[in-house]
């Protein structure tokens, strides 16, 4: 590789920063901002942002996948905001009261907000949005799934809305802070779903002007914007004139485009590019773990062999996750050992090592469970049946994660598991998952509340999800004691009580060996040094370009 032209004085601080970055990474600091704003912010200019996946619909209420919320954060505002410490702050709602039974939220709204189509923001808009999320026709998996308790909204006056829930829901404000539940123009929402998908309308700092499918989405500044979130660094309209949101699915190509100066920011920085990115003095990184349930393989407890807790523990202890993190993830990803990612509220570190790699213990457990026979290939058998683990693998799974599971396949084979990684296109795999036709299901769940445990492990989520999607309790786990704990946690807003209950929930989940947890989901941005003040919105650590500016 030819030397990169850059002034010599840069080299040393870069080296120093690189070392500091390494130190920070080693000490597990969640954010690495080797970037100091040298100038005062300037207005104008275009920022080119490159991402890996194209949203299937720009309205985050529909279905609800991560690429949608990343874009939504640029053009939508939320009723409330969340800060880094997990506190809920006013945003479009100036203040609110919760009824004593925890079932009615009275929101007082800002008076000065208009959507970019000219529609004023009123209590009617709040009702239209919440109704839209739970409308089956919207096909909302995420937003709709989060507010299954929603009963309806009463418009008290133009700027006061009373939201009624069927049951108390302590995490309600937390999920409202997520971009998935962003507030759209009611006039735009009234259009057919597929039309709204193409050009939804919000009140945010930018508005969508064009969607060039499979190529880019263009956003322009909303000049009237005066209602930024309290977590922002400035007030008033956004500093950038324009955002070009490019879709570059190939990870190596995306990073090369950044290095070549074709784009200013990339997200989903692949692990193999992280070391070169840290060494490159023209780049800086913005990394943060996302809260929720970490990246994992969930064991299907509803059929053999994982209906036996000993076999589940044996499988967890046969999987050498650290080996994978050291090879294909280049030590850049930290291990997540428990059911919650460390950045989730009420996370307890007590479960990080509850099922570490221990092949000897795995063998002993399999002996106990009666898997004592061996086939000619060394696969364990019981009653003549080989110990086979079926794992459907989506075509869209990243190379790094695919490799991780190939390594699990190899290490689990050493203790006698025949792990079958079964390739399929995403639709076929989803169909199999819907029919419980798997032993391990590869997935994750990003959310800013410990209530995620209820979604992924409580028996209420064994059936098809309320409004869309299929069962979200992929483990098929059903335990009345666990259900009681996570339900109780929704009834109280007392932080100490919630902490105690979620500790119990984590304990039960960990003791049942329901998941091979691997690493926390994370937002990983690499940015050109010409880009300043890119922020991660704290509720899901999603990129926010509201404060950003560029120097050319």
């Amino acid at each position, binding site marked *: 590789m030819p030397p990169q032209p850059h002034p010599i004085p840069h080299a040393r601080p870069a080296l120093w920063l690189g070392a500091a970055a390494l130190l920070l990474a080693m000490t597990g600091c969640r954010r690495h901002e080797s970037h100091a704003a040298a100038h005062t912010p300037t207005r104008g200019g275009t920022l080119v942002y490159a991402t890996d996946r194209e949203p299937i619909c720009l309205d985050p209420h529909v279905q609800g996948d991560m690429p949608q919320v990343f874009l939504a954060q640029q053009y939508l505002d939320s009723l409330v905001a969340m800060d880094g410490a997990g506190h809920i702050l006013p945003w479009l709602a100036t203040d609110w009261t919760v009824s004593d039974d925890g079932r009615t939220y009275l929101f007082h709204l800002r008076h000065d907000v208009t959507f970019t189509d000219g529609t004023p923001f009123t209590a009617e808009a709040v009702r239209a949005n919440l109704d839209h999320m739970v409308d089956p026709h919207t096909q909302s998996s995420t937003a709709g799934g989060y507010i299954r308790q929603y009963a309806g909204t009463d418009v008290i006056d133009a700027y006061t809305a009373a939201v009624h829930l069927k049951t108390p829901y302590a995490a309600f404000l937390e999920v409202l802070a997520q971009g998935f539940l962003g507030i759209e123009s009611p006039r735009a929402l009234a259009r057919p779903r597929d039309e709204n998908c193409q050009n939804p309308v919000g009140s945010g700092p930018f508005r969508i002007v064009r969607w060039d499918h499979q190529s880019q989405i263009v956003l322009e500044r909303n000049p009237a914007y005066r209602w930024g979130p309290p977590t922002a660094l400035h007030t008033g309209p956004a500093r950038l004139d324009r955002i070009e949101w490019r879709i570059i699915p*190939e*990870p*190596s190509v995306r*990073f*090369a485009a950044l290095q070549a100066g074709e784009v200013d920011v990339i997200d989903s920085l*692949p692990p*193999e*590019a992280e070391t*070169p990115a840290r060494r490159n003095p023209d780049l800086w990184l913005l990394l943060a773990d996302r809260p929720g349930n970490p990246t994992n393989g969930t064991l299907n407890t509803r059929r053999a062999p994982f209906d036996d807790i000993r076999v589940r523990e044996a499988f967890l202890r046969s999987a*050498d996750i650290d*080996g*994978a993190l*050291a*090879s*294909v993830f280049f030590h850049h990803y930290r291990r997540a050992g428990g059911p919650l990612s460390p950045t989730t509220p009420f996370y307890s570190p007590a479960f990080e090592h509850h099922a570490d790699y221990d092949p000897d213990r795995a063998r002993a457990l399999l002996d106990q469970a009666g898997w004592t026979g061996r086939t000619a290939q060394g696969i364990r058998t019981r009653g003549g049946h080989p110990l086979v683990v079926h794992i459907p693998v989506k*075509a869209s799974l*990243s*190379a*790094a994660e*695919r*490799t991780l*599971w*190939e*390594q699990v*396949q*190899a*290490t689990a084979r050493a203790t006698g598991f025949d792990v*079958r*990684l*079964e*390739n*399929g*296109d995403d639709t*076929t795999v989803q169909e199999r998952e819907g029919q419980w036709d798997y032993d391990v299901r590869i997935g994750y769940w990003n959310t800013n509340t410990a209530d995620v445990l209820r979604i992924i492990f409580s028996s209420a989520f064994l059936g098809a999800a309320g409004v869309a999607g299929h069962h979200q309790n992929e483990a098929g786990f059903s335990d009345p004691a666990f259900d009681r704990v996570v339900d109780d946690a929704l009834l109280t807003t007392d932080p100490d009580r919630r902490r105690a209950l979620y500790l119990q929930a984590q304990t039960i989940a960990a003791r049942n060996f329901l998941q091979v947890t691997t690493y926390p989901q994370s937002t990983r941005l690499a940015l050109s040094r010409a880009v300043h003040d890119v922020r991660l919105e704290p509720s899901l650590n999603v990129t926010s370009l509201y404060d950003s500016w560029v120097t050319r």
Partner: protein
Amino acid sequence: MTTLSLAPSMTRQPSRRLRPALGHLGPAAAFLFLALLAVAALAPHLLTHADPLAIAPRDAFHAPSAAHPFGTDQSGRDILARVIHGARQSLALGGGAITLSLGIATILALVGGLGGRIAEQGVRWLIDILFAFPVLVLALLCTATLGSGIVPLIVAIGVGSAAGYTRMVFGQVLSVRDAGYVEAARALGHGPLRIVARHILPNAFRPLVVTATMGVGQTVVWSAALSFLGLGAPPPAAEWGTMLSMGRDFIAEAWWMTFFPGLAIVLTMLSTTIAGRALQRAIEGRGP
């Protein structure tokens, strides 16, 4: 992806010229490589002692060296061993697909060539239809109905590449049908079956030996292309297309992960082409 659908056009008018610079060196090298491939497919352990499936995460991404001549992959597996062990799957796929393809071509060509005017036009249209239908969709159809694995892949590639071969064999059958010696046989009162068996088949299908040889290389490329798109062999099997596809994510850090499996594909393709041409010269030497 179309290398294959183009291939018949190439084999349709194969080069008859002996290249002085290459002389017999090219064919010799080609046959040597094919022999090596055969050994790799039948007895891979003769060529390498390394285990193609053994992972060593701490030895991941090692550049080519004496210990690992082709380097190691993202799980620390030896790429040379994986390329060698991958020969079996690739050749099985290539052989299976070309057999199926030529089988379809033969039947269609005979029906079209000897079945009268309507059949002839029908086969022409069928060729057009097959050419116009994207093989990716065909592959989807096969995996959807037959499940994933090697058989659907063989069917998809076999049927997908049948159009080109049908076109070629069909042309041969037509020219033989109208040739003087067949007329003569007819004049002598020989029955149609005998004419097909004695005259048309041998003369129309002698070039097929050549085509089949070249076609194996083409189908290997094809199967690599489909594996590249995620329709290939399940892990941890070593398969050239899958290896190459995995390697492309790491191309900036570990070029050898993509380069060597690709080289195996290219060399297979080249040596089958060169060997096919050598065979052709040999056959034409004693021509009809």
